[in-house]
């Protein structure tokens, strides 16, 4: 049985202004239950694309369909359409500060369920369950803007999950998380995949992309879609990765002969560990909850 189409994006372009292009003629599809990574260098348009898919920005040219109907201003102001769209799609903002707007952490997580008509008691129970799960229970009554960066991100994620969306648009979900939280997020993503969720993850971190996604879209710095393929295909094409500037040519000196070889940020086998080196160690650490994080194979969904 063929899977339902969630997003259908056709010749999508977006400009923030006359000389401010953010996306150029991008076309792709996302099927139900897929996990797709959106790769690209800083400023290539990943966040913009997620905001477009969430209907927060309107395309300058081209169109986006969600479950077969085009996302238009008209439809977004239709209460039934908008309601169901928001129920199904949830966006994790790149900047968690932007996302949290309630006076307390608990209210923020309960906001979604309340919107969907859950009783206050139910909404509260859900929120508390999620906060507990993410180790945030102690922070329930805190003002979100007083949390640390990583705590904010975890609250934001809990807020997104509270409505049990079918599609998760996640903008740099791993950023600002400490190694332990990164591993936990990987586990959460794995479970979401197992439960049939459709996930789009924007990241410039190839290591995580490899870990979570089956498919990758690579955006160029000229804001076009360079390639749409399996993660293995995309990550093994060093020429394209260099072109997109998601890896860099690292020059070494070997006995006076100068040669350069491409080097992947966050790649497991590099000698040159950036911050992700830390994450790798954490991944190998035996965990006290009985779960062993090491050696888990990348689990492409579907």
């Amino acid at each position, binding site marked *: 049985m063929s899977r339902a189409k969630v997003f259908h994006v056709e010749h999508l372009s977006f400009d923030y202004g006359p000389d401010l292009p953010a996306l150029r003629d991008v076309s792709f599809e996302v099927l139900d239950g897929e996990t797709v990574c959106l790769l690209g260098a800083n400023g290539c348009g990943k966040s913009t694309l997620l905001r477009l898919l969430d209907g927060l920005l309107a395309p300058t040219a081209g169109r986006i369909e969600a479950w077969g109907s085009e996302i238009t201003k008209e439809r977004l102001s239709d209460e039934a359409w908008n309601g169901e769209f928001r129920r199904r799609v949830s966006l994790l903002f790149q900047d968690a500060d932007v996302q949290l707007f309630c006076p307390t952490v608990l209210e923020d997580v309960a906001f979604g369920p309340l919107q969907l008509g859950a009783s206050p008691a139910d909404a509260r129970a859900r929120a508390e369950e999620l906060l507990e799960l993410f180790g945030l229970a102690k922070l329930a009554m805190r003002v979100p803007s007083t949390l640390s960066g990583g705590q904010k991100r975890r609250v934001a994620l809990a807020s997104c999950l509270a409505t049990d969306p079918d599609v998760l648009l996640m903008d740099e979900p791993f950023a600002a998380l400490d190694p332990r939280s990164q591993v936990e997020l990987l586990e959460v993503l794995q479970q979401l995949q197992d*439960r049939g969720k*459709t996930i789009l993850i924007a990241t410039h971190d190839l290591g995580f992309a490899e870990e979570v996604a089956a498919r990758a879209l690579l955006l160029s710095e000229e804001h076009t879609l360079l390639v749409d393929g399996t993660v293995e295909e995309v990550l093994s094409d060093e020429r394209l990765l260099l072109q997109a500037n998601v890896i860099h040519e690292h020059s070494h000196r070997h006995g006076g002969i100068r040669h350069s070889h491409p080097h992947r940020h966050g790649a497991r086998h590099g000698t040159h560990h950036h911050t992700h080196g830390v994450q790798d160690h954490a991944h190998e650490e035996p965990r006290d909850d009985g779960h062993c994080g090491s050696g888990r194979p990348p689990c492409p969904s579907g």
Partner: protein
Amino acid sequence: MSLPTWIGAGPPRTGPLPTSKVRLRTSFVEKTLLGISDFLRRGLEEAPERAAILEPRAALLAALALLVGISLSHSLVALALVAVALAALAGLLGLGLGRTLWRVWGVVPLFSAAIALPAVLNVSTPGPTLVELVATPAWLVRIGWPPVLSVTTSGVGVAGLLVLRVGASVSVAALLAGTTPPTRLLSALGALGIPRAFVLVAALTLRYARTLAFTVSDMHLALLSRRVRTVDAKAERAFVGSRMGVVLQRSRATAEEVHMAMLARGFRGDYVPLFPTRVRPRDVLAVLAAIGVGALLASAARAGIP
């Protein structure tokens, strides 16, 4: 760790999205707040270098001269002329200020109307009757109100004067903000001998207003992303009320962090310009012209211009 069982319990919803005839309402409060934050954002965005038409100190002095003239003016005609001239100037300079000025004239009367409206009535401004409205209730007549409530010519004059003054002043401010980057204005304040403490307060206020504006529009985006249905007016007011608290709290935190970042990089209250500016003949001319216009405005009514 294991996700709660209710996540992904049912099959994914994959059917087409439903439609209805019910519109998602944007409340008046929401629209107004967004309008104001948009206005602030626009005004506070750093104007690009090419738009700096006058030297900041000259721009500030010229604006000051006009503002003094406007606030002293009693002539409706002169004020209206100046307002039109300012709008034309904004258009000529091609600063994309047309929209800003449109907002000024759309918003200012709304805000000043609350103060200006009572002034048109014969209760507050006696004078020749323009339109008769209603008979005054007896108990009000007993405490000295006129028997018939009416709009007076002099009342309209007073209200018009108020609205025109506010509108013209805001236009001057918008023009100044649109042509001179805010930080340049701050350094101009210092250069004109305003004590550093005042400049610092102005800088903090500016930063606060800016983060406030950005916070409001960002949070609105986050709300749009999560809002499923229209809430009733009462719930909406409660929501906006509690959210305003969050907005204020957060923008204060941001503004303070920015200030700390500035201190960390050696900021002591002076804005040292990267591109030092020179006073050119046209700056002198502009200031003299503004002083002239200000003087004309202030004396127009005495010279018999209504």
